[in-house]
C-alpha cells in the first residue's frame, strides 16, 4: 500500500501544487482530532446511546470509557503502535465481559467512533476533494487496524475466560475417590458428552494406576440419559479397566440408560451392574474380602 502511494506521489506533484506528505497529513489530522476532542467525544457517546449499545453501563461510565478509548485511539493513530491500545482493550474487556457486554457492542462502538471521526474529517476537508482523498488514505488503514485490534482483543479475552471456566468445570466434574484400600468410586452427575466421557476414562484409568485399585464403582445415579456413543464409551472404559486388572461395578442405571445399553447390544457378561451405590460398595467389599459388621448390638441407641 505504502509503495503505491509513493509511486503516485511524484505524478500528482507534477500536475498540481505540492501537497504535504502523508506523514504531515496524519499530523494535521491528529491535531484536528485533538482539538475537536470534546465535541467529537460527545457526539460519539450520543451515537452509542442512540444505537442502544453498552446498555449494561451507565451514561457516566460510557463517557469515562469513551474518553479513554478516544485518547488511546488518537494516540494509536499518532504513534502508529498498537501496544498501548491493545493493553487498554484487554483491560477494558476484562472489566466489561463480566457485565455481559456482547461482541457486537464492542465492535459497534469502535466502528461508530471510526464513523464519527471520518465524518468530522469530511466536514473539515470537504472544500478540497483531493486533500480529503489523501487524508482518508492516511486515516482509513490506521483506523481499520485499530478496529481489528480492539475487536480481536475482546474476543481473545472472552475466549480466555471461557477456556478457564471449561477447565474448572472439567476438573470439578470428574472426581475419582478412594473409599477403601484398593477401592475407588467415581460418582458421575449431569450430562455426559463425548468430551467429558473421554475425560472420565482418562481420569479413571490414571486413578486405577495411582491408587493400585482392584475394584472401581462407577455410580451413574445422577445421569438421566446417555446417547449410544457415550454408552459405548462406558463399555469401553469398563473393558480397559479390566485390562489394567481392575473390576468395574456400574451402579444406579436409570431405565433409559438400561434401554440404551440393551439397544447397543452390550455384552452383559462384561458389565457388572448393581442397583444402587450402597449395593455397589457392598459388592466391591465382598470382592476385596472385606466384611463390615456393627460394633454394637444397637448402633442407633
Amino acid at each position: 500500500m505504502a509503495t503505491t502511494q509513493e509511486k503516485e506521489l511524484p505524478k500528482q506533484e507534477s500536475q498540481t501544487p505540492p501537497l504535504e506528505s502523508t506523514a504531515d497529513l496524519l499530523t494535521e489530522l491528529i491535531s484536528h482530532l485533538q482539538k475537536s476532542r470534546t465535541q467529537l467525544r460527545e457526539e460519539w457517546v450520543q451515537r452509542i446511546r442512540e444505537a442502544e449499545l453498552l446498555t449494561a453501563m451507565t451514561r457516566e461510565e460510557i463517557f469515562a470509557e469513551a474518553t479513554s478509548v478516544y485518547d488511546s485511539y488518537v494516540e494509536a493513530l499518532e504513534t502508529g503502535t498498537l501496544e498501548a491500545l491493545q493493553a487498554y482493550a484487554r483491560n477494558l474487556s476484562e472489566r466489561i465481559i463480566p457485565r455481559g457486554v456482547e461482541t457486537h457492542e464492542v465492535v459497534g462502538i469502535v466502528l461508530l467512533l471510526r464513523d464519527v471521526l471520518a465524518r468530522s474529517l469530511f466536514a473539515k476537508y470537504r472544500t478540497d476533494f483531493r486533500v480529503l482523498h489523501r487524508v482518508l488514505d492516511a486515516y482509513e488503514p490506521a483506523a481499520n487496524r485499530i478496529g481489528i485490534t480492539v475487536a480481536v482483543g475482546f474476543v481473545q479475552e472472552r475466549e480466555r475466560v471461557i477456556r478457564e471456566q471449561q477447565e474448572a468445570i472439567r476438573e470439578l466434574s470428574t472426581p475419582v475417590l478412594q473409599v477403601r484400600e484398593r477401592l475407588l468410586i467415581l460418582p458421575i452427575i449431569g450430562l455426559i458428552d463425548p468430551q467429558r466421557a473421554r475425560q472420565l476414562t482418562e481420569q479413571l484409568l490414571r486413578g486405577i494406576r495411582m491408587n493400585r485399585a482392584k475394584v472401581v464403582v462407577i455410580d451413574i445415579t445422577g445421569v438421566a440419559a446417555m446417547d449410544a456413543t457415550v454408552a459405548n464409551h462406558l463399555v469401553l472404559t469398563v473393558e480397559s479397566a479390566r485390562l489394567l486388572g481392575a473390576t468395574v461395578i456400574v451402579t444406579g442405571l436409570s431405565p433409559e440408560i438400561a434401554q440404551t445399553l440393551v439397544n447397543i447390544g452390550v455384552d452383559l457378561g462384561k458389565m457388572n451392574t448393581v442397583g444402587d451405590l450402597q449395593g455397589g460398595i457392598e459388592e466391591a467389599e465382598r470382592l476385596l474380602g472385606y466384611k463390615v459388621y456393627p460394633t454394637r448390638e444397637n448402633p442407633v441407641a
Partner: protein
Amino acid sequence: MEVPILKQGPYLIATVQSALTDADLLELRDGLVERIGQSRSRGVIVDVTALDVLDSFATRTLRDLAHMIRLRGAQTVIVGIQPEVAFAMAQFGLTLEGITTTLDLEEGLAYLDESLKTRRVG
C-alpha cells in the same frame, strides 16, 4: 529382540523390554510354552509395561499363548498394560477375553499365589 524368560519360584516371568516384531512374539510364545514343561512351572507372567502399542497380532498371540499354557497345565497373567494402550485395545475390541490381566508384576504374582492356593485347597 529376544525376550528374556526368568524362572522365579513356581513361575516363569517374561518381561518385554522393547517393541516386538511379529517374529519375536511367536518366538516368545513358543519359548514360554516349551519352558513351561521343562521347569514344571505353575504360572506364567508376561510383563508388557514397556509396550506403548499392542496390535491385533500381538493380542492374538498373547491369547493363543495363554490358551496353550492353560492346556499345558499352568496359568497366564498379562501385567502392566498402559492405560492408553488398554483403551485403544478396548476400542478395537481386543479385550483378551478370559485372560487374567493385572496392574503390574507385583499384582500378577499375588494373583497367581492366591489362585494356586485356592486350587490346592479346593
